[in-house]
């Protein structure tokens, strides 16, 4: 049952052949594939980390840009508003000025017309008065009446304060 002989060498030979061949066909390829997988997973994780960082940077950048854009847009709106307000004020001012001018001009014209009308009227009235006076005088004034009138006038002067001309 217990018999040590040369089969021990055979069994050792078996063992070392197996060791050599398994190393070649099993351990090394499996180790290699495990290492490769670990490396790939590591790489993927690193990659993911890098991408995440990149994405965060891009996000921050875009947020900044968006903020800038908002500010800019606000500025543009403000500017436009200011400009529009200014323009509107200008337009109103101009319009008011124009209206004022127009009003003044019209008033002047009216004044002018009024003056002209008044002057015309006065002239007409004077003419008519002279004409009427002439006519009246021509109709009513004979020598007697004339005489009488002058006399009456002188009398009136005497009766009241003489010499004091009113």
């Amino acid at each position: 049952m217990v018999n040590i002989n040369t089969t021990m060498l055979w069994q050792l030979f078996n063992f070392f052949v197996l060791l050599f061949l398994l190393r070649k066909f099993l351990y090394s390829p499996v180790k290699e594939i495990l290492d490769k997988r670990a490396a790939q997973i590591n790489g993927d994780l690193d990659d993911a980390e890098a991408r995440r960082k990149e994405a965060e940077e891009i996000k921050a950048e875009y947020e900044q840009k968006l903020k800038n854009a908002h500010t800019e847009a606000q500025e543009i709106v403000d500017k436009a508003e200011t400009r529009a307000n200014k323009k509107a004020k200008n337009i109103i001012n101009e319009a008011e000025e124009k209206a004022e001018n127009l009003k003044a001009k019209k008033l002047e014209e009216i004044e002018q017309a009024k003056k002209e009308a008044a002057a015309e009227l006065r002239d007409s009235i004077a003419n008519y008065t002279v004409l009427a006076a002439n006519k009246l005088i021509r109709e009513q004034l004979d020598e007697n009446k004339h005489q009488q009138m002058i006399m009456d006038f002188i009398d009136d002067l005497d009766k009241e304060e003489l010499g004091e001309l009113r």
Partner: protein
Amino acid sequence: MNPGPQIQFYLFGNELFPITDTLIVGWVSVIIILLGAKYLTSQLSIRPNGKQNIAEFMIELIYQQIEPMLPGEGWRFLPFIATIFIYIGVGNLIGVVPGVTSPTGDLNTTLGLALVVFIVVQYEGMREYGVWGYIKGFAEPVIFLLPINVIGELAKPISHSFRLFGNIVGGGIIITLIYQAAPALIPVPLHAWFGVFVGAIQALIFGMVAIAYISVAKS
């Protein structure tokens, strides 16, 4: 009845080269293992498929036994330890097949492997502490313990090999006895017990003890 290896024939007709049934089964085991390894690793890819998972699982399982005992050197010792695990495991389990004798039921196999482990242990010890430093370690803590330590060291391959040999041969003897004594009802589960369970346990123990010896020599 003559338990143990049976001589089948002599190589070259020379009595120095007997070929036993255990040796033939050992060759068959080697071929089975190599075919299995070839099959499991035939299509390795980063994304593992079914059989690749089995190969990776086995390798990683063995690696996980080595790494805690020999930190940082798991992959260096893996081929040696894994070959012990696989060869002894298959050698033990093949004995379940009726009429087949386990190659590990032969002291030539187990002692041969134990001696290889012994040599590796001495080499690793000297590699760690230097030749003189390692030899000096046997005289510690006091010089008169030197013979005891040396005997203890030399007893390691003997206990290592006889443990496996005795378990497998003993299991075989018990099964043979019961096959002769009892009807076929009881021996089947018993055969499974000695063949599968004891075989797996003893393969595990042989490998773990080899790791432990190396670990002890290095610490």
